[in-house]
């Protein structure tokens, strides 16, 4: 059964130094508030899994939370590089960052097979590419019927999955809608989970019979953090704040501007401040 608590409590209860942590959100619903709380609590030596490491992991890696990154596409979407991730990979600042690199297909399959309780995923992939040469976790199996050789990757089974969702109900069920990404799979594949939500409602009300819902007993901790996906967006709640993605490029380019920004905007702030961030981004009528 999921439990409602503050974000600080949720991070304390679920994230331990050295954990493998998957924070997902495919452009939509990126759990930024939770990332900031992990930074504030000074978590260290995390292995961070994410299909598309972007600002959230640039911040966490720049603040020294992680020593390994498992990913398939790392960048500031539509803008450019992740300067902090590159500084960690290329120069070891603030610490050395090991990488395990996959394709999207591999990562998505690894979450799905993790959610399915399988030790590995099979897919038709990596053909003719150099990725298997630099990632020893990419192996293969032979189809027992056709003889075709197919790629395999180990399933993702993170210690903790962290996602942001639209809303929870009083029983602790969690509703997702819109661009779903791999969040449901990440939670189902993980041992523990933190779900931040825009709001808690008494009841989800009339809905599609096949609504995408994580039932209460599959979820760990729930924390209400309005605006918690900012500067990404929450369908029906607020829009993506594109300007900040561009701004981040300048902030993150140098170590000192980065650290100053993090001090002012993360270390000295609280989850409650996210509501203010999205005040002007709220969508009109639903």
């Amino acid at each position, binding site marked *: 059964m999921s439990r409602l608590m503050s974000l600080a409590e949720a991070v304390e209860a679920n994230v331990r130094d050295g954990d493998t942590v998957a924070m997902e959100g495919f*452009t939509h619903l990126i759990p930024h508030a939770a990332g900031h709380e992990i930074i504030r609590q000074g978590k260290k030596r995390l292995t961070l899994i994410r299909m598309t490491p972007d600002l959230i992991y640039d911040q966490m890696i720049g603040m020294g939370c992680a020593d390994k990154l498992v990913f398939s596409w790392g960048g500031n*979407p539509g803008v450019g590089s992740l300067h902090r991730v590159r500084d960690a990979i290329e120069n070891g600042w603030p610490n050395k960052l090991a990488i395990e690199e996959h*394709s*999207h297909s591999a990562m998505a399959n690894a979450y799905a097979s993790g959610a399915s309780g399988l030790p590995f995923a099979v897919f038709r992939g990596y053909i003719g*590419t150099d990725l298997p040469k630099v990632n020893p976790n990419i192996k293969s199996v032979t189809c027992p019927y056709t003889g075709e050789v197919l790629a395999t990757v180990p399933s993702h089974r993170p210690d903790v999955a962290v996602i942001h969702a639209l809303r929870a109900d009083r029983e602790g069920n969690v509703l997702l809608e819109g661009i779903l990404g791999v969040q449901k*799979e990440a939670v189902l594949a993980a041992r523990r989970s933190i779900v931040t939500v825009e709001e808690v409602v008494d009841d989800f009300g009339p809905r599609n019979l096949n609504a995408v819902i994580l039932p209460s007993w599959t979820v760990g901790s729930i924390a209400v953090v309005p605006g918690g996906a900012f500067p990404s967006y929450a369908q029906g709640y607020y829009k993506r704040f*594109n300007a900040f993605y561009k701004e981040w490029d300048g902030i993150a380019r140098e170590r000192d501007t980065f650290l100053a920004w993090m001090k002012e905007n993360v270390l000295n702030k609280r989850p409650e401040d996210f509501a203010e961030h999205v005040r002007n981004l709220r969508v009109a009528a639903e």
Partner: protein
Amino acid sequence: MTTTYKPAEMMTVAAARALKNTDVTFVGIGAPSAASNLARLTHAPEITLIYESGTLATKPTVLPLSIGDGELCDTALTTVSVPEMFRYWLQGGRITVGFLGGAQIDKYANLNTTVVGPYDKPKVRLPGGGGAPEIATSCGEIFIIMSQGKRGFVEKLDFVTSLGHGEGGDHRQRLGVKTKGPTKLITDLCIMEPDPKTKEMTVVSIHPGVTREQIQENTGWTVKFADKVTETPAPTELELKVLRELNERTARAHGEAA
């Protein structure tokens, strides 16, 4: 009557023209997205656009800044999860055209979006493969859109992120790949297509005002030209109007959101 246009506009227009009304395209952000939506707003109104974030048959009125903008979801027929996208839709063989680009390309249209320099000691660490490794082999055919220049058009890739025609000839088939691979490479200077036999990317059409010398100067290998090289028709007034309106709408929408 002549209208002034930029080389990037010619590139987008040429890519849009290559799309058919019946195509199902796997669209990336940037030029592929502009080209696909330009096609949809001109000669291919029923083209099906799919973005890897899970949006099926989407009809955005403005171009997305990211692969998962709310606009894509709001205007889609429906949106599926990312594992479903890669399993049932891409690997399932339901896409006719995939778009790719990259930091480096070689003459067989293999692409590098991973790293410049050695993998363990990169000169430039690029974003990585994302969907490309499987897009390259799962889509019916691949259109590549890239600005042409010696830094990107190289004799040898530092890293093969996605397979084009491999070492040329029947290399794809020998690897067990059943799809066509890159059938068009559309740049700001010309259009290249694979030689039917060697699979080396070969210039088949040159954009107006561009010379063969310019193409060679911007390419890191000795460029092959087809026996019959045509001139790419310049963008029509309609194409330019629709493209520019799309870009203006996009700028306004993203500006407003900011």
